[in-house]
């Protein structure tokens, strides 16, 4: 397939049947609409392109900045589209909680602004919430912004009215599925697709999925947050159900490990919510039905999100020479030396003085003649064995003498004959009036 522009590769994503052995439904064919295969990685490519396209030429002429309230995929797509058209892009958000996405946006050249948190000393008469202020800035005179306004822009929904929805019908041989299950973010994809499917068959049942209120699933709103979305109309959905983070990750793992679909947590939530809802009706069916859910984006951007919630999935084998393996007794009895003795030892025994603090702190003030090896790097070094000759005495220093004691114990265990920890650390050194220098 040959294209003149990457934007032509947006849309026309595959509809893939999930193996019944995985979902266990006997009367329902469950299909995944693989929006993760869009060129910038998500369903939002469609809306971003459709919203921005009519204005890009004017914006390029005026030198406008593209701006959107987005914490993820819309920002990603808009950053790419803006860059392709010689424009800059700014994402304003208070929801950007996934570090990889933040880093990726910065990599793509986006500017990110995070909205301030709630006031601790609340002023109930202050009606200027951060969003109101954002809109005031955007519409201020003399500001040349191309604001795509994904939560209110009908062209968001339109992208799915003309794209996603008809594609599903076409791939099901001109028939709408009996069921459509979608997560509610901007509500653009669910509203657009639901409209097309119902035009085809008014009996289509639409299940909207929202995040449980105290939870955070990227790309899904809680029920309260959904009400803040201009495109959201509760009437679109036959039912609205909540999905938890654990369920979203469980669904994601099933798609990742058993279906070969590298979906992110939003797709996982859609799969989980679909199977949970359909299982309840499956037993009473006598005829075959079909159901479609949307896989919004890919898993790779959410590794830290998953690691935080399911550290068990990242269990790695224990590594050798780790300070975590030490017993309390080993740490307690680690060789150490007080400030006065350390000063004398430095003068006579010429130990290598290793400062385990960060480079920033080391640069500010340190013991004259010491070398700086940050504890994290030191830990890595030790995995490969002793980094010093056994004939060279070593004095380890950290802020309060706690980390240095651990490493002194570890080096002793690894066979170093003369390693000592500076008792009380650099703080004790300073408090004793011993000299600290800047180079």
């Amino acid at each position, binding site marked *: 397939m040959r294209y003149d522009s990457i934007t032509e590769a947006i849309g026309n994503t595959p509809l893939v049947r999930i193996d019944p052995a995985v979902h266990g439904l006997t009367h329902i064919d469950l299909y995944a609409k693989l929006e993760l295969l869009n060129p910038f990685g998500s369903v939002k490519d469609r809306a971003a392109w459709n919203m921005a396209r009519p204005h890009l030429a004017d914006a390029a002429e005026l030198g406008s900045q593209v701006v959107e309230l987005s914490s993820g995929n819309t920002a990603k797509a808009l950053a790419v589209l803006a860059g392709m058209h010689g424009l800059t892009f700014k994402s304003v958000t208070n929801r*950007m909680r996934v570090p990889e996405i*933040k880093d990726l946006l*910065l990599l793509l050249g986006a*500017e*990110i*602004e*995070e*909205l*301030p*948190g*709630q*006031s*601790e*000393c*609340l002023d*109930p008469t*202050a*009606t200027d*919430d*951060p*969003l*109101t202020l954002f809109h005031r800035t955007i519409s201020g005179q003399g500001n040349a912004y191309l604001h795509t306004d994904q939560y209110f822009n009908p062209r968001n929904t339109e992208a799915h009215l003309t794209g996603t929805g008809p594609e599903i019908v076409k791939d099901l041989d001109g028939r709408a599925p009996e069921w459509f299950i979608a997560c509610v973010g901007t509500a653009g994809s669910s509203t657009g697709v639901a409209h097309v499917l119902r035009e085809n068959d008014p009996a289509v049942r639409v299940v909207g999925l929202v995040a449980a*209120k*105290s939870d955070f699933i990227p790309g899904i709103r809680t*029920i*309260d947050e959904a*009400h*803040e*979305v*201009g495109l*959201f*109309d509760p009437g679109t959905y036959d039912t609205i159900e909540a999905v938890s983070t654990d369920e979203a990750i469980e669904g994601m793992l099933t798609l990742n490990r058993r279906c070969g679909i590298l979906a992110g947590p939003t797709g996982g939530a859609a799969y989980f919510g679909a199977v949970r809802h359909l299982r309840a009706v499956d037993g009473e069916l006598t005829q075959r039905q079909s159901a479609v859910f949307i896989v919004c984006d890919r898993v790779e951007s959410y590794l830290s999100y998953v690691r935080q919630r399911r550290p068990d999935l990242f269990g790695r084998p224990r590594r050798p020479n780790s300070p975590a393996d030490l017993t309390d007794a080993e740490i307690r009895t680690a060789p150490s030396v007080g400030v006065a003795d350390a000063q004398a030892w430095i003068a006579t025994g010429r130990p290598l003085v290793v400062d385990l*603090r*960060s*480079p*920033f*702190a*080391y640069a*500010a*003030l340190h013991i004259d003649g010491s070398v700086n090896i*940050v504890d994290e790097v030191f830990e890595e070094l030790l995995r490969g064995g002793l980094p010093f000759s056994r004939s060279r005495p070593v004095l380890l220093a*950290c*802020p*309060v003498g*706690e980390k240095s004691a651990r490493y002194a114990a570890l080096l002793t265990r690894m066979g170093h004959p003369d390693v000592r920890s500076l008792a009380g650390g*650099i*703080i004790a050194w*300073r408090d004793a009036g011993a000299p600290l220098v*800047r180079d």
Partner: protein
Amino acid sequence: MGGHPLYLKPRLGPRLGSLLESPGVLNTLTDALGSPLHVVIPDQIAANLEQFRSVYGRHHLSGQVFFAHKGSRSSALLRRLAATDAGVDVASLGELQHALGAGFTPDRILATGPKNPEFLWLAARTSVTVSVDSRDELEQLSALIRKCSLPRADVLLRLSGFDVPGVRVLSRRSRFGTPAAELVPLLEAAERHSDAVDLVGMAYHLDTTSLAEKATALEGCLRALEECRSRGLRPCAVDIGGGFGISYLADGEQWERYTTELTAAVLGARPPLTWGGHGYGLRNEGGTLRGSLGLYPAHRPVAGARYLDQLLSHPAASLGGRPLGALLVEHLYDLHTEPGRALLDQCGLTLAKVLEVREQEPGGELLVRLAAKADDVGLEEHGVLMDPVLIPRPDRRTADQPVAVHLFGSLCLETDLITRRTVFLPRRPEPGDLLAFVNTAAYCMDFHATRAQQQPVARKVAAWQEGGSWRWCLDDQYWPTTSVGGAQ
């Protein structure tokens, strides 16, 4: 009553819980001293301090915990704290006098906020550390010290408007502090006035619940301190202000259910949950929810000392990703904090007597009038939604049957509502019953109280447990000797 009762049960620690289970004491107190009445619990503030100290210990940090006096005018709480190793942050001449009189020595006092000449003079005269708000204030303080031949003053410089590379974290504009971008001229002024002032550290205080904003400011302070060191100055402390917060409610689910129902009420999907359909900042524009909820997050999974712990564990993105607490220790800096609300958590309650219970329409919400003005119970003013605890007279215990009520104050004024929220109580209150508004010690007792319509301001008593029962005295009669078997 309009559906299930939407309770917002307060979180009760052991001391407040025990006091509420002593209705005899509470009735005696209000019978003798009138309604409304504030009760403070001095021993609680010492316990809260320990929580902060243990976070310092966990991060190996030294430095002072300065209680932000402005949260409460209580003498008992201040004197109890003077008997610990805490410091106090004073923001007015009166607060400084109060702190000195309560037993705080000048080395444990920090003068902050907007200052008039008298406040500056007394601070410098007594060698209290001054947190300097602006370059002008630094000039003013230095001139005063020279003119009056006062001792050289220790100063912290308060900064604001921090930026770090990468993601730009927006912050509400502050009227306090010197913009971080103007650090160099500020330091030049400090050097010029080094005969009068000694720069001991940097400070910030941000009015926000956002951890990311505070982390940005702390990183900014570390950079500013590095600039000081490169100029040969020797600052040794960072003061990160307060704003650690309180979690007021016992049950996060109740809070979530309530806010969801409030949203539905604003959108017209259920009957109103407030007097006159008030939306607490939310509004309905063509079926879409607009505005923002102008309420304190009454249930906070992380607040107080644990919030500080989390801030100190937060990685400093622009400084190699080390946790902020580790960076402070590594740089050998003392950490100063100024918790106000968080130190006052669970330190008191406000009692109000029910005067009248009226049924305006049959089966409708009850209108309950209290012997208190709205400004005597500042919870609503601070956006804290939390149920009062009903304490029936012992002889008049009605059966449990939830009711919805509106709570009115005693002023002849339509807007004198204790709260605009429809409050659900587990049973119908009767005249003579008490309503206990708990956890009001922080900002909600005396911050806004007036003498409107010649009505009295609430009295305040201090209470403590001794030999299994509650003892009390008037707030200004309390001294740390009182509660250890002294005279009552």
